[in-house]
């Protein structure tokens, strides 16, 4: 029966070719196993390419006092102490080595006067810590990894969407998907699989994320029996473009503030003074996003409902050198010259802290042979991610996932492909052509309206419940959406499938959000405005129930080692507001 399918076989299959997937593939390949790398877009176009501001690592090239301990402390404060401590520790310790490695593979970062890698300030980082290339750091990173990867004999399958992870009993055995170009199906057999599919922001109306971010990896893992954690924590980046309408949501890098940009309201006040007098404009993202939202609610917003962000005092030459893509973005898309006057900015859905629950050292999920790294994995960033900590996360845990997935593949044989699973996967994806329901784009817009209005920056029990009710109706509609045209390169059909994943993850967000009756990091409850230190001991846990229902629970935050507690001691004042871990 399988004969009618195109089949590829590898020791390790990596799904996703952003920073995490590429780094994983390189490591696995270097470890001597055969590697397949699948991605929905063309190679080099993953979200990682859009990252602007920089990659965080305590190199101490600019501020000599910096150390992994300070980076760890900042990351934990940013995440409000429910991060997986072990991940935050490994990340802080290994990031510098990974950045140097990128340089050794050909990346060309901006330089200090002595000729070392330059680092800039960013929100929530105590020291100047972000290595960067102007405001196109992600491009530098993905191109470096891509060019390294193509010489390692990795087989790349571009414009191929995975719709199901295949299992033999408990164990992973491969993946099933379709070619976007032809609509034909393809089976990948593998001894282990690394998920590196990135984020999920497309269920929100205003987002910095592209069409790819439909929570595919989160849904693939969930449907394969893996656990998701921290789904309530969605980062709304404080500075997205808001005008003109076509560009709303597009990111304005935090590097603008890192380089000295200031936020003001319609009265010309530097309003961050009232929300975080110490860190001001470089406060953590959750705080700045809420501040802009509140200024608007109280009538002090900018013309189009945001805030003003001004960097023009730095002079035209400086701005064009350090923020060239921001300069062009505003000039070309909004007719605003940021060397002469302020930009208008407002919050945009940006990043998902939650995701697949993994073991810190190996990046393996609870499904044997299934690994996850990058934005699709949860735990590292806790309740709120610091800027720059994602790019470093990608290479630190991408490498680990690739290493341990290849070790797993060496120790285990190929598990069987279950023909029934293939048949049902095929039916699931094709079924849409026989439907007579709504246009998938219309259902998608309904979903975006629902999530934006009810599970956004500020949340209440009532609103979240509204979302949960709405989602169950949308789920039915989404099953029935009607597809026009053939299977060849048909975005409407692709959307029909993506919708199922977005709705699944939206439900995970809402159910986790209603469970957390406190405010912590990116999760702000109007009905429970304060953090409760007692709630720092658990993270939300979502998994698939035996009858196909979504099960919501809690997982304990792993206990912190003595050494790490010592590190946090210097920061006791801030810790105790959110957590009892030092008591």
């Amino acid at each position: 029966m399988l004969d009618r399918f195109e089949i590829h076989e590898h020791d390790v299959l990596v799904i996703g070719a952003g920073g995490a997937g590429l780094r994983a593939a390189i490591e696995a390949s270097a470890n001597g196993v055969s590697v397949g790398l699948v991605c929905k877009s063309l190679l080099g176009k993953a979200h990682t390419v859009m990252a602007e501001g920089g990659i965080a690592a305590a190199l101490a090239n600019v501020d000599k006092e910096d150390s992994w301990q300070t980076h760890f402390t900042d990351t934990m404060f940013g995440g409000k102490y429910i991060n997986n401590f072990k991940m935050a520790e490994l990340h802080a310790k290994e990031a510098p080595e990974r950045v140097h490695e990128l340089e050794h593979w050909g990346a060309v970062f901006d330089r200090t006067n002595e000729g070392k890698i330059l680092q800039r300030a960013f929100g929530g980082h105590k020291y100047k810590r972000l290595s960067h290339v102007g405001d196109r750091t992600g491009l530098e990173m993905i191109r470096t990894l891509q060019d390294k990867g193509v010489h390692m004999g990795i087989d790349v399958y571009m414009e191929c969407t995975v719709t199901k992870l295949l299992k033999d009993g408990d164990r992973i055995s491969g993946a099933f998907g379709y070619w976007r170009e032809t609509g034909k199906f393809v089976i990948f057999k593998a001894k282990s699989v690394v998920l590196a599919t990135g984020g999920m922001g497309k269920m929100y109306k205003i987002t910095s994320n592209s069409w790819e971010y439909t929570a595919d990896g989160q849904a693939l893992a969930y449907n394969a029996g893996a656990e998701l954690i921290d789904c309530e924590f969605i980062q709304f980046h404080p500075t997205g473009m808001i005008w003109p309408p076509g560009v709303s949501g597009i990111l304005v890098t935090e590097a603008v503030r890192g380089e000295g940009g200031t936020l003001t309201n319609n009265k010309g006040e530097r309003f961050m003074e009232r929300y975080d007098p110490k860190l001001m404009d470089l406060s953590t993202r959750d705080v700045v996003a809420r501040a802009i939202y509140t200024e608007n609610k109280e009538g002090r917003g900018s013309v189009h409902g945001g805030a003003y962000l001004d960097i023009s005092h730095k002079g035209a030459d400086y701005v064009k050198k350090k923020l060239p893509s921001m300069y062009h973005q505003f000039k070309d898309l909004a007719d605003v010259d940021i060397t002469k006057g302020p930009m208008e900015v407002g919050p945009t859905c940006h990043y998902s802290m939650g995701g697949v629950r993994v073991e810190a050292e190996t990046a393996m999920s609870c499904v044997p042979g299934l690994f996850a790294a990058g934005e699709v994995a949860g735990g590292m960033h806790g309740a709120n991610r610091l800027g720059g900590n994602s790019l470093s996360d990608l290479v630190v845990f991408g490498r680990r996932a690739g290493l341990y997935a290849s070790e797993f593949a060496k120790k285990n044989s190929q598990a069987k492909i279950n023909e029934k699973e293939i048949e049902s996967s095929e039916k699931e994806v094709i079924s849409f052509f026989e439907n007579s329901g709504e246009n998938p784009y219309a259902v998608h817009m309904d979903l975006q309206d629902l999530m934006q209005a009810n599970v956004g920056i500020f949340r209440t029990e009532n609103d979240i419940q509204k979302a949960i009710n709405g989602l169950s109706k949308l789920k039915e509609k989404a099953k029935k959406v009607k597809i026009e045209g053939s299977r060849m390169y048909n975005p409407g059909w692709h959307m029909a499938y993506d919708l199922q994943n977005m709705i699944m993850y939206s439900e995970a967000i809402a159910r986790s959000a209603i469970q957390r009756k406190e405010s912590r990091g990116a999760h702000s409850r109007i009905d429970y405005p304060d953090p409760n230190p007692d709630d720092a001991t658990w993270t939300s846990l979502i998994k698939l129930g035996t009858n196909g229902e979504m099960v919501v629970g809690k997982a304990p935050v792993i206990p912190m080692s003595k050494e790490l507690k010592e590190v946090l001691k210097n920061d006791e004042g801030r810790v105790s507001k959110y957590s009892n871990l030092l008591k």
Partner: protein
Amino acid sequence: MASPYRMKNAKFKVYRGNASEGQEVEYTVPVEEGMVVLDAIHYIQKNQAPDLAVRWNCKAAKCGSCSAEVNGKPKLMCKSRLDDFNLDEEINVRPMKSFPIIKDLACDVSWNYEVNKKIKPFTPKENTNWIMKQRDVDRVQEFRKCIECFACQNVCHVIRDHDLKPKFAGPRFFVRVAGLEMHPLDAADRLSDLKNDMGIGFCNITKCCTEVCPEDIHITDNAIIPLKERIVDKYYDPFKMIFRKIFGMQ
């Protein structure tokens, strides 16, 4: 702010079809302030033609996915503002001409990925301390801005009119090689590859590539011409050749 555009419509003619057959189909799109061609294509997709194939990712000129020919000119659709067009006339949108069409606006650019594979990777000098001054990497950073939109490949007559693809790597990859050759710490030599396999000699410096580069990379002046000069120095300069013979240098 009252918008002067609110009531206006724009007429588009979009290529619909595959490599063997297709036609331009007319669509009408209501115009909003600040709208770009890609917004219009998305509007058509949402409301009139859900199966219209188009590539895009960033919508901010950072990923190089959305290249197409708008009124016959290679453009990033996400960067092409409608207010730069005369909206009394139809706007024509077609896939890039130099690559085989897959469907509608998506074409097969896989050849470019094959070319890239053949380029000798970055090879650091031994025992370097990794110190590089900013002024020594400025030029390399210019080349590394490339977002692989392939507009330069599309417009270069060696590819577009003469289809010398197997023998010619194209401006995008001259830029890439220049980024490696001018890297202060790179030790590999790609000049013979450039001359032989990559066919840099076919380039007659028309500068069409530079004109369309959305990243403003000075492809011809900063990458191609210096590379050509290095080749001349190496292979054709008699003094240098004798010098090489006497001292046994490569």
